């Protein structure tokens, strides 16, 4: 069955968020050291894997995966371990919001995939921020 236009758009949205996360974790990792740097590296790798997986899914569906931007504007300067952690949490929140879009498509498998991916990124956001939220991914 051909994927709907909405499903492809949602997958592209998730891919764009993963591209941003891969870029952002490069910035995060650059100012961290020790365990935190190792955590950032692990998350960076996980986002690369997710990016590759989404690109493969889109290709299988006959779509051209969106490319990463050459650069991204950071939401705030990252000059310390604290701001690096805040950026990591912000990146994860962005990824969670993007996967929420997949949950709205009609394909049950994509819904489940989106919801599970939200859980992964919400947990990473909690690990970086030290706090939980009632509605990860939902507009405030």
């Amino acid at each position, binding site marked *: 069955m051909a994927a709907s236009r909405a499903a492809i758009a949602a997958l592209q949205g998730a891919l764009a968020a993963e591209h941003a996360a891969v870029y952002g974790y490069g910035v995060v990792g650059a100012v961290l050291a020790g365990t935190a740097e190792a955590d950032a590296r692990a998350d960076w790798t996980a986002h690369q894997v997710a990016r590759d997986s989404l690109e493969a899914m889109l290709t299988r569906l006959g779509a051209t995966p969106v490319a990463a931007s050459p650069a991204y504007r950071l939401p705030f300067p990252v000059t310390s371990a604290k701001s690096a952690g805040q950026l990591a949490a912000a990146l994860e929140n962005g990824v969670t919001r993007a996967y929420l879009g997949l949950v*709205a498509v009609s394909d049950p498998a994509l*819904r489940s995939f989106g919801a599970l991916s939200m859980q992964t990124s*919400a*947990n990473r956001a909690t690990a970086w921020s030290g706090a939980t939220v009632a509605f*990860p991914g939902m507009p405030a």
Partner: protein
Amino acid sequence: MLAASPTTLPLFLALSACRGPAVLSAPPAVSPQTQTLLHAVTAELNLIWVYSKVIAAYSGLTPVLAPLRAEHEAHLGQLRARVTEPPGQRLPGTVTARPEVGATQAAALVQLRAAEQAAVKTQMSRLAGASPSLAQLYASIAASESTHVSVLNARIGG
């Protein structure tokens, strides 16, 4: 205007009888989606009840558990707000499961973790039959509950 008379009264009664069953019939059927939503409301009530019992039994856990309970209360509010049909549908307000709280603080935390894990699984099972908007709410609540599992895991040390 039709005035009641020995001849018109039977007709009036007959017409009333025709309308009668509509008034006396069972309430409008609840759609499967609303039924699921009502179950989700009850499940949140049950979770909040367990959290409250654990907090009452082990007050030292309040700093960890009260924020999680507050998030469940927010979930409950959003779920209740989505019950829009049939008009006049009564919202569940009763806890349906009152398990014994763990005999130790550690056991109570394990109990809460198990409840959160089960809740995540149940939310996931609700996705397929839900409207896009409700599916997103269930998914977001599931993500929140999965972070609760992590918080409880860290506290348990497992």
